[in-house]
């Protein structure tokens, strides 16, 4: 056994144990680690804002050639957000928010349709390669049925009667199997995270092994 003498390793190890103590129950040690975590992450955020936004994106492009004067526009909009601090001018924040939210909505519409709808539909067509063997054909048909019944499950404006209801029921079975598979697939990955932390405690901190 060769216990670490580095204060940093000790801090990391104690914080690790404090977080784990949560598994027993909420306690002052966990709360201490939680507040340290919160404080650090906010301090970190402030440094990021200062460096990445104020210095790199505003100060340098604005005050050094080639001056990007167009940046005054977002800065002005950004300043309007401070309207929130006064009762009288709170309404000002609606302008930057409208511009910000609508722009992202506009950017996402075509991209989402392209990548998550059209591309997926194209991938669902059956090509000759998919029929090259009997198991391959069965699998292709299963994928097809899984997709169709799942889409039917997500119909909202049609009553679930007759064949439609049956299809939706088959759909939910497929969905549950898919979720189960995804769940089972993740278990080992999560266990390995724990192994990583245990290695840190046992090797780096306590120096065993």
């Amino acid at each position, binding site marked *: 056994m060769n216990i670490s003498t580095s204060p940093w390793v000790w801090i990391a190890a104690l914080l690790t144990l404090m977080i784990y103590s949560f598994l027993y129950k909420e306690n002052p040690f966990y709360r201490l680690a939680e507040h340290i975590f919160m404080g650090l992450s906010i*301090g970190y955020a402030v440094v990021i804002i200062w460096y990445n936004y104020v210095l790199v994106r505003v100060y340098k492009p604005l005050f050094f050639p080639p001056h990007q004067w167009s940046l005054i526009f977002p800065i002005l909009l950004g300043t309007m957000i401070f309207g929130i601090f006064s009762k009288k001018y709170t309404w000002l924040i609606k302008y930057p928010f409208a511009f910000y939210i609508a722009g992202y909505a506009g950017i996402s519409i075509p991209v*989402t349709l392209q990548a*998550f*709808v059209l591309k997926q539909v194209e991938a669902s067509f059956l090509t000759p390669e998919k029929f090259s063997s009997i198991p391959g054909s069965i699998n292709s048909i299963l994928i097809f049925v899984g997709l169709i019944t*799942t889409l039917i499950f997500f119909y909202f404006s049609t009553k679930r009667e007759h064949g439609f209801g049956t299809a939706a029921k088959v759909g939910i079975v497929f969905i549950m199997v*898919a979720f189960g*598979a995804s769940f*089972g697939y993740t278990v080992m990955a999560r266990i390995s995270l724990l192994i990583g932390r245990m290695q840190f405690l046992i090797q780096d901190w306590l120096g065993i092994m």
Partner: protein
Amino acid sequence: MKKQVPLLITFLTGFIVIVSFFVPHRPFGILETQVLTWYAIIFGFTMLIGVDSLIRLHVRKTQRRKKGWWYSIVFFAGFLYCFVTGVISLIRTSNPFSPGTVFFYGYRTILIPLQSTMFALLAFFIASASYRAFRARNIDATFLLIAAVIVMIGRVPAGYKLWPRLPEVANWILNVLQMGPMRGVMIGIALGAVAMSLRLILGIERTYLT
């Protein structure tokens, strides 16, 4: 007026950005990159509201000596530590994020272990969730459970020892049975999200502007 103008901004911004996806010609082609740079700046401003809200909350807790107020002092200590080392590193090296600065060192030795420990709590939680899933509540949950167990065991060496074809079955579930429904769920989400965005641009959905 106070309500109409933001709605007009919403419509025009959304519409122009969509058009720019299809038009490579100036000024449309470069619009997306330009707008994203602007958004990054606005984003910086929005974060200040958050920092302000949180600091005020802890100041109030400390002033009023609310229960557990001294945890707020711990919060400020963590905050100041990051802030001060950040400023020192910024002055010394002009980039606080370059390896070797005090700021980066604190990040690597305190913040990262905290993050990975929180993340690693999942090992316990996934175990407890699996345990509960074992007592499948209904028929749907039973399907989830069966698929989960086969995939879970099929992917470890013990699964092979149990039945040599189990890993194959697990892979078949992952590559075939999972494919169709996941694609369906994805298409559904995409359509729902696009419809939501369209409603927003058309001014039908306006909760965020209340």
